[in-house]
């Protein structure tokens, strides 16, 4: 498959269909890392395997990347879902983007270059049932706690936060150019790494993710002090999907579930 991926990338670069391909290369030790391929000869370095976990969609909303105009991106499942969400939030413009993603057959690479194609591909590839993972175990454990215990648990967790905002930097949906925490007139959230400000930041982050988070886990992956942030956002996502009666497809493609009213909303307290 990597061969097909490389060939396709090379083709797009040499034909000057795109200015840059966003993909992965080999990192230090045995990991992989995101990389930008500008020249055909760079493609040599490209890798793509199970280790490529980073959600590359995060780069699509960056100002300097957008300035390249047309570009290609190597997308795993998580990246694809984020792209669909970004489209629904008006952050990706049509036909600026080639998405290269592994197909169902061995060694096959699929190229998607319109919003419709991306959407329909993602809808087809949504897994019907998800295997429980470690995050689910943690969620189950937290759900068993009393309100007070839960509060204590998160307070202890966030006491460790060093406010490096790596979670924010890694998240494809944290694309604001000025974050709430950087608004200084007024200063809503204390900037220092202290449990009060830390709690405020993480509660705000979870709220700002509600109805939007695609549960890719990039935030937790990025956290240098290993706070399991995905537990928070996953529950937020599940609650929204349940309360508003949304299929995964509706959840990804629908925009602004919290700020729009539909008469058939499941929410009884709205009326």
């Amino acid at each position: 498959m990597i061969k097909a991926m490389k060939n396709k990338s090379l083709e797009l670069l040499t034909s000057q269909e795109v200015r840059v391909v966003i993909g992965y290369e080999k990192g230090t030790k045995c990991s992989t890392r995101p990389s930008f391929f500008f020249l055909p000869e760079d493609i040599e370095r490209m890798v793509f395997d199970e280790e490529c976990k980073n959600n590359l969609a995060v780069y699509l909303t960056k100002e300097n990347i957008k300035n390249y105009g047309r570009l290609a991106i190597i997308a795993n499942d998580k990246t694809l879902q984020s792209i669909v969400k970004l489209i629904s939030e008006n952050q990706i413009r049509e036909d600026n983007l080639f998405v290269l993603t592994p197909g169902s057959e061995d060694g096959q690479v699929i190229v998607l270059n319109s919003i419709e194609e991306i959407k329909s591909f993602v809808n087809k590839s949504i897994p019907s049932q998800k295997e429980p993972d470690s995050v689910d175990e943690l969620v189950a454990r937290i759900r068993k706690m009393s309100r007070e215990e839960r509060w204590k648990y998160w307070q202890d967790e966030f006491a460790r936060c060093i406010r490096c905002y790596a979670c924010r930097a890694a998240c494809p949906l944290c694309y604001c150019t000025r974050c709430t925490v950087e608004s200084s007139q007024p200063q809503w959230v204390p900037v220092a790494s202290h449990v009060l400000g830390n709690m405020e930041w993480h509660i705000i982050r979870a709220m700002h993710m509600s109805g939007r988070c695609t549960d890719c886990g990039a935030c937790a992956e990025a956290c240098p002090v290993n706070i399991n942030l995905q537990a928070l956002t996953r529950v937020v996502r599940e609650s929204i999907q349940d309360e508003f009666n949304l299929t995964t497809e509706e959840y990804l493609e629908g925009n602004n579930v919290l700020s729009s009213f539909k008469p058939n909303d499941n929410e009884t307290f709205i009326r």
Partner: protein
Amino acid sequence: MSRIGVFICHCGENISATVDCERVAREASLMEGVLYSIDYKYMCSDPGQNLIKEAIKEHNLNGVVVAACSPRMHEPTFRNACAEAGLNPYMCEIANLREHVSWVHEKGDATTQKAIDLVRMLVEKVKNNKPLLPITVPVTRRALVLGGGIGGIQASLDIANAGHQVILVERDPSIGGHMSQLSETFPTLDCSQCILTPRMVEVARHPNITLITYAELESLEGFIGNFKAKIRKKAKSIDEKLCTGCGLCTTKCPNKKIPSEFNEGLGTRTAIYIPFPQAVPNKPVIDKTQCTYYTKGKCRLCEKTCPAQAIRLDQEDEILEFDVGAVVLATGFNVKGTDFFPEYGYGNYQDVITGLQFERLASASGPTLGEIRRPSDGKIPEKIVFVACAGSRDPAKGIEYCSKICCMYIAKHAMLYKHKVHQGNAYVFYMDIRAGGKMYEEFVRRAIEEDDVKYIRGRVSRIYERNGKLIVKGADTLMGGKPIEIDADMVVLATAGVASPKAEELAQKVHVSYDQHNFYAEAHPKLKPVETNTAGIFLAGSCQAPKDIPETVAMASGAASKVIGLFSNSELKRDPSIAVVNRMPPPTYTTCVGCGLCVTACPYQAIQLEDIKDRKGNVVKRAAYVNPGLCQGCGTCVAFCRSKSIDIEGYTSQQIVAEISALLNDE
């Protein structure tokens, strides 16, 4: 550098009885940035206002805090006073010491301290105030009136007579509403149609009124002075220009057994029909749900019969668009059916009818030509029972309010019955008799004393049928709760007046608020009874609450005068307290990222995404833009914005935080 003046009002004794106003003024003078502070007995009086004006001039104040009553009451007064002294009116803020302090607390130090705290908050807010300029928007001088009952007719005529264009939209094939169904009207017993039909004709003939019947509002967009209305004109299946209204088609239509809406189901009509002889416009429509051609695909008898060849079976609904500056809602009410009452037979007894059905029986144009005959067998009833408060004033039934018109129309019904059936007996079961109104009490007394209607104070617990009679079981609470049983021939239930079936849908379309019973909410129960909370939309008649004819007409004229007032200027000034998305110099342009969360959150559709271009005309960003004409300053978008890129002018986050901080930092 803040130069703030603080003015503490005693409000007579309203504030000073519980708040030490002199101390508040003293404390205020010590606050940072306060240059001048004084207390006075009536700040809103002429000398009081002069005090403010003089102080602004003398001390060159750049901010004013008036601590007085609610800003809803006198904010405009004090802001105007400031403007007259040369200060931007939006540099004046009100601390509410009356509703928020003196009226709700007892006299004491803590009460005075709260007053001081409120003043301190507003002083801090004023420091962050900016001068604002009112927004001007143009006004389209054309009104849309929804509902062609007496309310809509009156409002339309008043507005049209003032020289403005009116679009009158009616859902039914004819205007006239419930009033056209009534037999006589209280308290004069004059014929309802005789006084109504001339008005209906006047509407149809008025050069300033465009009458659109058999139509409904599809959508309403825009804002005060600048609405865009889409009207769905349902297909009548006739060419209105060719049709002469001869009515030949209605005699030939084979489908004759359809219950007539106009006769409240007591008579029948055909599938192609004119609802009643005096209808305006007096031209038929085809009821597509009943017509054999539309349901089975065959017939076309009317098409063959019509001498003018005016039948158009292939006609489709039409969408008409109008620019209008104001909207009057006059969509009226309805009454509950007899099927709402399990204890009164679930609507299964034919001779248990509603008040509105009785109107049709008593009407000369009704199915019995004005003779009181019971629906089941056409016999003239010898004993008739009227039940007041059927559903109304009954929390158990979910209708806790009084329907207001029933006491009067029951007296009228009983009287009409006695005038037509001299030997008959009429009984009225009532809870209270509410006859407030000119000549109303006298009218009820006349029914009791002159026409011998037997009023029994008590409620009816059950009605059931026995040997062709309706047994009405009740109690006479004035006789110590003595059980009463009347074997009546007919029972008339004064069923509760309720909102129109589509009232809620319409309210959501035009964005006006409504109460738990779907009656439309006025902007203020006393001082703004015809306005709604949406600027430019007014209320007339029983869509707001059950009302009788004179009240409806008065309200309609009130709403019309509001519309005429609005139309008296070619543009109107609006409060600049609206949402603004920040804009800044390049390369940032704005901190808005154009996610569109606010677009869907806005209840007034005031926000859209716009392209921000650089000097060369390249689109550099897509960001939210708030239409200043549409925005009502509710602040919902501010709460939703993740990047804090929206603020309400005059209520910026900075100002609110300054207020809160002033309160929290106080030792």
